C-alpha cells in the first residue's frame, strides 16, 4: 500500500501537544484561496522552482529526460509544461533551487522515520500528526499507518478539513488520539466561495466526531476578507457551543505561503492580516473551550 506525501517535518511543535513529527499528504478536496500549503492541493507531484536560489549551473539539464530545463543566454529557464515531475533534477541541483512536492511512500518506509523521534515524543507528551493536503483522502493508508503507530505506543493526531464521508472517520477513530479539525466558516455560500465546496458535510462530521467522544481541537483560520468578522465568528462559536470540543485555536492569516504559490507556477490572492485587536476580540468568543 502506498501514499503520496509531500513533506515530513520533525520537531513540529504546533500541531498538537509536545514534540511531533508531521506528515503532509498530497491532495486536497478544498481549494482555499488563502492556502499556506498550496503545494499540497493537487494530488499530482509538482516540481517547485525557487528562481532566486538558482545559480544557472546547468546540472539539471544533464539529468532531465524531457528537456524541461534549458540554459538560455547563460540563464536557466524552466518549462513547466514539459516537466513530468520525475525529481531527478532535485538531487543534481547545486543551488538547492528545486524541490519535488509529492513522492510515494509505504508504511514500511514511513514508520521507521516516524519512530526516530519516539524518545522525544515520550518526553514531551508528543507524537505524530498526519496533515496535508487532506490526509483522509488516502484513508486506507492513513488507517494502516495510524494502526501501526498506535501499536508502537505513539500518540496520533489527524489534521483534517473534514470534507470526506463519515465512513472514513469511522475507520480511523479507534487509532486516532486527537483530531485537529479545520472550520473555515459557518455560512455555506461563503464556504463555497472561499474553498470551492459546501461545508455541510464538514460540520456534520464534526458533530458526529463530537458525539463519538473524540478528542477535538478546532482550528479556525482568520482572514479579514473572508471570515474575519463578528458575524461569522459568532456563528462558528454558537455552533461549537453545543459540541464537545477540547480547544479552539485561531490561526491569523499571513502571507508566508505566498512564495510557494509562485514556485509551483500559480498565482494567489493577497489578503489582509487581521489586527491584534480583532484576534483578541474573537478569542473572547471561544474562551469557554
Amino acid at each position, binding site marked *: 500500500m502506498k501514499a503520496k506525501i509531500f*513533506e515530513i517535518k520533525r520537531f*513540529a511543535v*504546533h500541531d498538537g501537544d*509536545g514534540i511531533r513529527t508531521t506528515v503532509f499528504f498530497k491532495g486536497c478536496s478544498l481549494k482555499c484561496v488563502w492556502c499556506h500549503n498550496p503545494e499540497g492541493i493537487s494530488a499530482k507531484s509538482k516540481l517547485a522552482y525557487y528562481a*532566486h536560489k538558482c545559480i544557472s*549551473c546547468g546540472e539539471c539539464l544533464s539529468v532531465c529526460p524531457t528537456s524541461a530545463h534549458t540554459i538560455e543566454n547563460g540563464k536557466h529557464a524552466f518549462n513547466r509544461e514539459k516537466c513530468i515531475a520525475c525529481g531527478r533534477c532535485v538531487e543534481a541541483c547545486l543551488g538547492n533551487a528545486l524541490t519535488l512536492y509529492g513522492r510515494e511512500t509505504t508504511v514500511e518506509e514511513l514508520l521507521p522515520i516516524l519512530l526516530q523521534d519516539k524518545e522525544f515524543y515520550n518526553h*514531551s507528551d508528543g507524537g505524530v*500528526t498526519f496533515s496535508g493536503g487532506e490526509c483522509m483522502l488516502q484513508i486506507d493508508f492513513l488507517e494502516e499507518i495510524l494502526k501501526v503507530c498506535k501499536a508502537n505506543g505513539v500518540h496520533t493526531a489527524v489534521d483534517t478539513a473534514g470534507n470526506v464521508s463519515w465512513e472514513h472517520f469511522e475507520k480511523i477513530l479507534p487509532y486516532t488520539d486527537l483530531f485537529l479539525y479545520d472550520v473555515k466558516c459557518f455560512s455555506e455560500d461563503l464556504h463555497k466561495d472561499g474553498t470551492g465546496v459546501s461545508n455541510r458535510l464538514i460540520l456534520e462530521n464534526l458533530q458526529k466526531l463530537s458525539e463519538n467522544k473524540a478528542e477535538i481541537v478546532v482550528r479556525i483560520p482568520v482572514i479579514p476578507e473572508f471570515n474575519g468578522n463578528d458575524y461569522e465568528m459568532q456563528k462558528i462559536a454558537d455552533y461549537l457551543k453545543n459540541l464537545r470540543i477540547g480547544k479552539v485555536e485561531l490561526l491569523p492569516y499571513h*502571507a508566508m505561503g505566498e512564495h510557494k504559490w509562485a514556485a509551483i507556477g500559480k498565482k494567489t490572492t493577497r489578503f489582509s492580516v487581521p489586527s491584534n485587536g480583532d484576534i483578541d476580540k474573537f478569542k473572547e468568543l471561544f474562551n469557554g473551550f
Partner: protein
Amino acid sequence: MFNSFNIDRKFIEGKYHKVDEPFNPHMRRAYHGWDCPESTGLSIDDIKKGLVAIAKQYEDKSHEVQKARAIEYVLQNTRIDINEHDYFPLIYTWNREIKATTFNKWNQGLFEVLVPEITPQYKLFNESGAVSMWPDFDHVIPDWDSVLSLGFVGLKDRAAAYRDKLLKAQGALTKTQSAYFDGIEIEYGAIIEFIERLYRLSLEKNNDKAELIQKGLLSLSKGAPKNIYEAMLLIYLYFMISESVDCYQVRSLGNGLDFSLLPFYENDLQKGTFTREEIKQLLAYFMMQWSAIGNYWGQPFYVGGSDKNGNTKVNALTRDIIDVYSELGIYNPKIQIKYNDNIPLDFLNKILSNVRQNKGSYVFSCEPGMIKAIMSYGASYEEAYDFDIRGCYETGVRANEVSTATGYVNALKAVEYAFHQGFDKRIGKQVGLKTPEIKNTTTFEEFYNIFIAQWSYLIETSINISDRFEQYLGYVNPSSMYSATIEYSLKQGQDAYQSGVKFNNSAVLNCGFASAVDAIMAVYELIFEKQITNFEELKAALNNNWVGYEKLHFKAKKCKHKYGNGDELADWYAEVLARYFSMKVGNRPNARGGVYKPIMHTAMQFVWQGEKTLATPDGRRAGEETSKNASPSIGADRNGVTAFLSSAIKLNPSTYSEAFCVDVMLHPTAVQGQDGLAAMKGLLDVYLKNDGMSLQFNVFNADTLRDAQANPEKYENLQVRVCGWNVLWNNLPKEQQDAYIARAENII
C-alpha cells in the same frame, strides 16, 4: 537606602572601563574606568617600578615568596576607592602588574631553560593552529565553603595550624613545604592588611552606603562574613584579588551561588538584617560588577542542582537571583543551571522563557551525565554529586580537583595535513607527520588511515609537550591564594594547582570535530561513493580555495553524509571518531599525578583555529570557522533539532569526562507559547536521559535573522514554523523575511 540602583547602574557600567571609549572584550583588563583618588596610592608606572625593586630585594627567595611579596606590594600601593554609587570597592591595579617580574619571567625560563627540547614544536603548534596550547591557569574554583566559613583571617590561621601540625609530625618542613606556607602567610597577611586599608578609607566616607560598607570591611578584616552582604563582598574581593593581582582566574562564584549564600539569606531574613527586597538590590549591585567587567569569556556561576539524596536545591534565593538577573537584562555573568528531573517546573519554565526571549545567558548542565563523567576517573559518588562547573562547561570534583585545559587539538588540521604530508602550507613548515602522498591513495581506507595517523600525531605530541611543561605549573605561578582554601593541599603542604589536590588532572579539547567528520565523509562521498572527483583534483581545488572549482565546491557542500542529520554513515563515523579521541586521551596519567580528561567543546578556537586552517573537503573555505563544540558544521544540520540531538547523543557525551556541549538552534516561532516551553523541556529531557552534559539553546533573534538574510549560505537549514506552515528561511523572499524579523522582535 536601597532605592538608588537605577541611578548607580550607569556609574558601575563605567567602573571597569570607560563606556564611551573603544573596548576590546578579548583583552584581559587592559583598561580602566573610574580614576581613584591619587592620595590613596601610587600610579601604575610607579607600581611597576616598585615591583622591579621588590623582585631584586627578594630574588634569592622561592617563587612562592617572590610572588607573595609582589602581591603584597601591589595591595599596599594600588589606588583604591569607595564610591557613593557602589557597595563594592574599587582596586585600580587591574592588569596583573606582577606578571612582568614574576610569571612572565618564569614562564620564559620554563620554555628556554627547563624544557627547551619541546619549545620548537610547542611554538609550531600554536603558530600553525594545529594545537593551541599554553600553561593554563584559567580553570580554578576555590573551596567556597572554606572561604565563606573562615574568611581571609580564618584561612590564614588554618594554614598556620596545618604548618605547625606538619612540623610536629615531620620534625622539619621540606624546603618546598616551607616556601608553600611562607607564600600563603605573606599573601593572606597582605590581603588582610588591604581589607584594613579599604576599611580606613571607608571611614572617610559619609553617604548612604558608607555604614554598610564600613561594617562589612571591618568584619572581613577580622574574620568570616556575618550576613549576605559581607558574603557577597568576600566573594567579590576574593575574585578581584585572584583575577587581577594573583593571576588565577576564578571560574565560579560560590558552589553554587544560591547554595553558598542561602544560610546568610535565611539568617538575615529571620533576624531582620535585610528585607528580601534589600537583598535583591544587593544582588543587583553584585551581578552588575561582572556585566561591567564584560570579558568575552563571561563570568559563570551555577545554581540549582540536587543534594546528596536527589532532592532539588532550588530555593527562594535561587529564584531571587534569577529574578534580579532577568530584571537587569544583562548577559554577563552567565548562569549554569544544574539540571535534573527534580527541577521545579515553574522555575524551569521561567528560565526557558528567558532563554527564548534571549534574556540573559544560560547553560543547562545535566547532573546525571556529569556525575558519571566524574566517576569515570575514579571519584566516588560522594565526591561527584555536588560537582563544580569550572569554566564554561568543565566539570569536576568540588574543592578537590584541578583540571587544566592543556591543549586544543584541531581535528580539521589533521585532515588538511593528510592532503599535504603534514606540511603546513600557510606557514611553510612541516608541522604534522610525514605521511604518504595523497594522490597515490587508492582506497578510502588508506585515506582514513592517513587521517588517523595525523590526528593521533597531534594528540600524542601535544600530550608529550604538556607532560613536560605541566611539571612546572607551581614554579611558573605558585597558587598560594587558591591553595589556602583547599584543605587537602594544606594537609600535605603542597601547592594545590601543581599537584596538591586529590584529582590533579589535565584536559585535552577535541576541536573542529564535526567539520573533520564532514570532511572525511566528503572524501568518501565525492571520490569513492559517487566518483565525481579524485584526490588530485580535490587537492587542487583545496589549494585554490575552491576558486575555479565552483561546481565541485557546491557538490562538497551538498554532500549527504554530514554529521548532525541522523545520516547513518556520518553518525557512525562520528561515533567511532569521538570514541577514538576520548579513549586515547581519557584516564592516561599526566605529569602531576592525575589523568588526562577529554573535552568536546572548542571555546573560541573554532574561530581562531579556523582562521589558520586552509580549505577543507567539506566545502569550507580557508579561514572560515570550524564546527563549534559538539555541534554540526554551520548549515550542515538539515533535518532539524531532534535529528541533531540524536546524532550528538550517539557520541556518548559522558565519556568526555571534562566537558561536552551542544548548541541547540531554534527559531522563536518554534518555541512560542506553552507548547514551545514543553518542546524545549522535551529536548532537554531526552539529552538528560542519555547522559548529556551541557546544552545551550540559541533561539534565533531578530539580529540573527538579519544575519541569515545577509548570509543565506550559512543558514541552509534554518526553518520557520508556524502551525504546520513549513518554510525554509532561504526560500522566503526578502519582504517576507522582513515580516519574520519583525515577528522575532516581538516574541512573547
